[in-house]
């Protein structure tokens, strides 16, 4: 009867508490492994979400043909927005305004009050049409910028390398030899705009002594309308324009960052692999020290399968506890941490996918880490095992 039964659940739990220092060390090791997995997955997910949130299939970007994909190098005539609005059908109208946003976009050195060295930041010259076209943008604090003022995205400080307080409302930022007062802060649903500084277009053009634009963002009534803007650009070759839907533009960016993402997944695999080896090592140590105990259980009539299961149960319990601790630490300290990259900044994202992967890795660590040492211990004859020291 006893031989048919599994060991009681609390036997495994109590065993963990009988060796608190060993259990605590193993728990710590497993937590670090799972946390590392969580951080790397958070990095990949954050990057993906930032690029995905920026692209809207109804918005078409029109920029210079010669600028390849680098919009900051683009220069198009100032009359382009009026030409587009007059020539292309299907442009969205909102509040009596055509959603055609002329923009000047540049990467430049920006200094704040407490910075000794300027940091590279992204500045976009916009008109009041910009928030109609870029629907994700929400002014969450302060006012729309007037002459000599700018508004800052919530991750702009991270992109520049400044403190958050340096970009508070009322503070000054300096770029292109002119000082600008911060009049507001905006969010943009996790998109790349959040790492930018927005200034009034005409003010920025005056400061830069430029009359041209970098791009025109056009919001269409339907995603199908992107083809009409594309046709216009291909017909008017004298303007040397190129059109691409915003979603396609950022999808191309995603492709550009594919090696980084692949590297991230390789790191996840390596960290998980090293975690499994560390787990194996710990479990070998733990099982070797318990050979007599395991043999005694066999003499009491418990089957090898039942003892094997209890060893796996102990390891899995420990790794799952590690996963819980890692997820808690990840949600509190890692989630939302701003990371700078070439296109701006994004936030590490500890989301459901990251947590699922971390928990999966933890379960794998528990099962795979416990199985080989447990199998080895079970193969030893009971008489020899019971005599071992």
């Amino acid at each position, binding site marked *: 009867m006893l031989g048919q039964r599994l060991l009681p659940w609390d036997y495994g739990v109590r065993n963990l508490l009988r060796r608190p220092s060993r259990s605590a060390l193993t728990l710590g090791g497993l937590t670090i492994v799972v946390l590392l997995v969580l951080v790397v997955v958070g990095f990949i997910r954050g990057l993906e979400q930032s690029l995905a949130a920026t692209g809207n299939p109804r918005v078409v970007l029109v920029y210079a*043909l*010669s*600028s*390849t994909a680098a919009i900051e190098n683009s220069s198009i005539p100032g009359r382009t927005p009026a030409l587009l609005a007059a020539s292309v059908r299907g442009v969205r109208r909102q509040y009596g305004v055509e959603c055609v946003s002329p923009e000047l976009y540049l990467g430049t050195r920006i200094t704040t009050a407490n910075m000794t060295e300027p940091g590279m930041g992204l500045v976009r010259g916009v008109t009041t049409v910009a928030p109609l076209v870029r629907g994700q943008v929400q002014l969450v604090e302060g006012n729309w910028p007037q002459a000599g003022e700018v508004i800052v995205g919530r991750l702009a400080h991270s992109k520049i390398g400044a403190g958050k307080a340096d970009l508070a409302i009322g503070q000054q930022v300096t770029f292109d030899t002119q000082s600008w007062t911060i009049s507001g802060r905006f969010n943009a649903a996790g998109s790349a705009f959040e790492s930018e500084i927005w200034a009034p277009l005409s003010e920025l053009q005056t400061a830069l002594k430029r009359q041209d634009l970098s791009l025109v963002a056009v919001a269409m009534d339907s995603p199908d309308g992107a083809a009409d803007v594309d*046709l216009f650009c*291909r017909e008017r*070759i004298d303007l*040397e324009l190129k059109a691409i839907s915003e979603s396609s533009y950022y999808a191309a960016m995603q492709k550009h960052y594919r090696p980084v993402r692949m590297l991230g997944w390789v790191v996840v695999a390596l960290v998980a692999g090293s975690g499994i080896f560390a787990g194996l090592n710990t479990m070998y140590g733990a099982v070797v020290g318990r050979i007599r105990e395991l043999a005694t259980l066999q003499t009491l009539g418990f089957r090898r399968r039942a003892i094997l299961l209890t060893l796996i149960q102990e390891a899995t319990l420990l790794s799952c506890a590690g996963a819980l601790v890692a997820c808690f630490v990840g949600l509190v300290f890692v989630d939302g941490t701003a990371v700078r990259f070439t296109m701006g900044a994004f936030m590490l994202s500890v989301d459901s996918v990251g947590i699922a992967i971390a928990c999966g890795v933890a379960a794998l660590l528990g099962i795979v880490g416990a199985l080989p040492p447990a199998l080895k211990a079970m193969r030893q004859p009971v008489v020899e095992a019971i005599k071992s020291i």
Partner: protein
Amino acid sequence: MKTEFLALVASAALLAISSGCGTAPGSAPQSSQAAAAVDASQYKLTEEPDGAVGVIAAREATDDGDPVVLVGRVGGSEQPWVDGRAAFTLLDASMSVVAEGEDSGEGEICAGDCCATERLHCTTLVKIVNSQGQLVKIDSRELLGLKVSDMVVVKGTVKKDENGNFVMLASGVYNRNE
């Protein structure tokens, strides 16, 4: 009881599959619906028209509204198609396309953005228009079965302006590769 329960589960699964994975009637892709409504044969020429000239020659020799027959290859850029519209880029037959990033000599361009300016002089946009002169709103790959690098002969009229913009409004296309 058990059989009834299993039948219920199976029905629920079937329902979920049919509603989640299937395509509801009438939700076929818009372009396919439009393609079905248009007689594509009216834009496909069964015989090759005579007197075809290249894109470069036509740019110089024709005026706005002139009837013209152009010969060239579909392509010359990374994306010669206009998605969802019967329009494509036609490259002069004398030009050849080299891989992006490679050095291009006389009579060669690459499909990338680096040759964007050179491309303007040896390519043209071909728009397939209906009898009212309206652009057909079906992708040319779907309407005419065209592929990149197909050698085609296009019959139509020239739309040209003083800024050097040259567009071919095509009434029919003959595909030499068919």
